[in-house]
């Protein structure tokens, strides 16, 4: 009998305790932000889609079109094509991402040897059409350079057959020069490095083989 009344009293008191909590929160200020009239600041490492980083020294991107990012991407959404303007320097002529596949994993950023990519911190990325989510990063870079007053990096043209042949010839020249220098070094220090000497002449025929292959490849393209 006593238990019955005790249960009722304890239960009733717990209900009042719960109501006290709610009324306390009733008079607290609200914690929500009325987007889009008020905006939040994003955290510094927030991930939007990737974009090319503008190097403060050169005023342009640092991508060398090595395609490491395209190879590591789990969703295979990066398309990079490069062209050699100079035998030692390759620049991208096309860098397009299909953002609708992106899982924001960051593997492309981490695998880039020149640290050319960064997160763009864009979050207004909703579109009506799937094609609007395909971003051309070179065009985006140009827009950013214009906005910052920097000289705009031109997007290179795809190489013609002549240019390819020219580049192949230049590369062949440089490779020959390298092989000659290596052979000279091998001749100058034969006795001291016997295994080294075996390795060096082994390198020289390999170097000879490469320029022989290279023109064959470029001509095929």
């Amino acid at each position, binding site marked *: 009998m006593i238990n019955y009344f005790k249960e*009722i009293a304890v239960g009733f008191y717990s*209900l009042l305790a*719960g*109501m006290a*909590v*709610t*009324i306390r*929160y*009733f*008079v*607290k200020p*609200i*914690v*929500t932000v*009325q987007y889009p009239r008020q905006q939040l600041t994003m955290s510094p490492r927030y991930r939007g889609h990737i974009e090319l980083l503008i190097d403060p020294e050169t005023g342009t991107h640092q991508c060398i079109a090595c395609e490491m990012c395209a190879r590591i991407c789990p969703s295979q959404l990066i398309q990079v094509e490069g062209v050699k303007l100079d035998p030692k320097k390759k620049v991208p002529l096309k860098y397009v991402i299909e953002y609708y596949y992106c899982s924001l994993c960051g593997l492309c950023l981490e695998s880039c040897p020149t640290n050319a990519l960064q997160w763009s911190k864009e979050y207004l990325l909703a579109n009506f059409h799937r094609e609007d989510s395909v971003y051309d990063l070179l065009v985006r870079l140009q827009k950013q350079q214009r906005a910052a007053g920097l000289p705009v990096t031109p997007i290179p043209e795809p190489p013609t057959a002549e240019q390819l042949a020219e580049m192949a010839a230049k590369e062949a020249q440089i490779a020959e020069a390298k092989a000659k220098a290596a052979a000279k070094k091998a001749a100058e220090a034969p006795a001291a490095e016997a295994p080294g000497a075996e390795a060096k002449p082994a390198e020289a025929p390999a170097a000879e083989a490469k320029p022989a292959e290279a023109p064959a490849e470029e001509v095929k393209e």
Partner: protein
Amino acid sequence: MELLAQFLGIEGARMIVGLIAVIALVSVNALFLIWMERKVAAHMQLRPGPMEVGPHGAIQTVADALKLMGKELITPDEVDKPIFWLAPIVVFLPVLLSFLVVPFSQTWIIRDMNVGIVLILAFSTLPVLAILMAGWASNNKYAVFGAIRSVAQNIAYEIPLLITVMSIILMVGSFKLSDIVAAQSQYWYVLLQPLAFIIYITCGTAETNRAPFDLPEAESELVAGFHTEYSGMRFALFFLAEYTNMFIVSAIATVLFLGGWHGPFLPGVIWFLLKVYALIFLMMWFRWTFPRVRFDQLITFAWKILIPLAFANLLITALVLKLR
């Protein structure tokens, strides 16, 4: 007014004007209550609630009502058509008619019947019939579930309601609502009978199917319970009936326990409305704090706890009155 009085007699004119005023009051009340519910819920949940339409969302309900009126009145295939169409009307009319006897102030009462309280209690049982009609006619398992639960719940909670009302009537000695209010001119009955007040508020919340007793419309279990198949204006009528029922229950609680329109400086009507809305705020507070009660626990609570306590209250009241 005078023109009407020539045709219908003073009582008839009073009724017509009163009914028009009541319909206006019900609409404005529903408008205000829905906005208030959303704002109270929002602030308890640390968010602003409706802010877009009108200053602080004041005319959000008008936008919602327009939307509901524009919706198609879908009648599913195998329903029992007459019952399906009548149910929203039957749920709304008794509640509207209960306004006839509510004393808003000393003179503002449409018809001061001498069985006032009995009329209201009788009319508050009719919506149960309408819920059963709605659930059955919908040809939907979930709706029938909701209707059955609602009927059992409503009948179970009617009894403590009636018994606590009886305790008050014993003290007053008459069923007339204006008499009950007049008898509280010295001190309100909530001070004399706090237990009855608590039981009445609990049963009132259960009668209007509000949380924590909102099993008939348990959203997370049965989609929408007995009004699953209703859309558009019919759904709006169910909604309207629920909020008007809340008003009636709070109005009767004010009359019985909180002294009706008595109060110091402001006119009676203002005090009455303030007290009614304070009680409605209390009911909203319940909704946003407590989880739902399971069905068998609901019935157990009514039969094993509320009814014995209400009876005990009645016996003690009778004893004290006899010994005076």
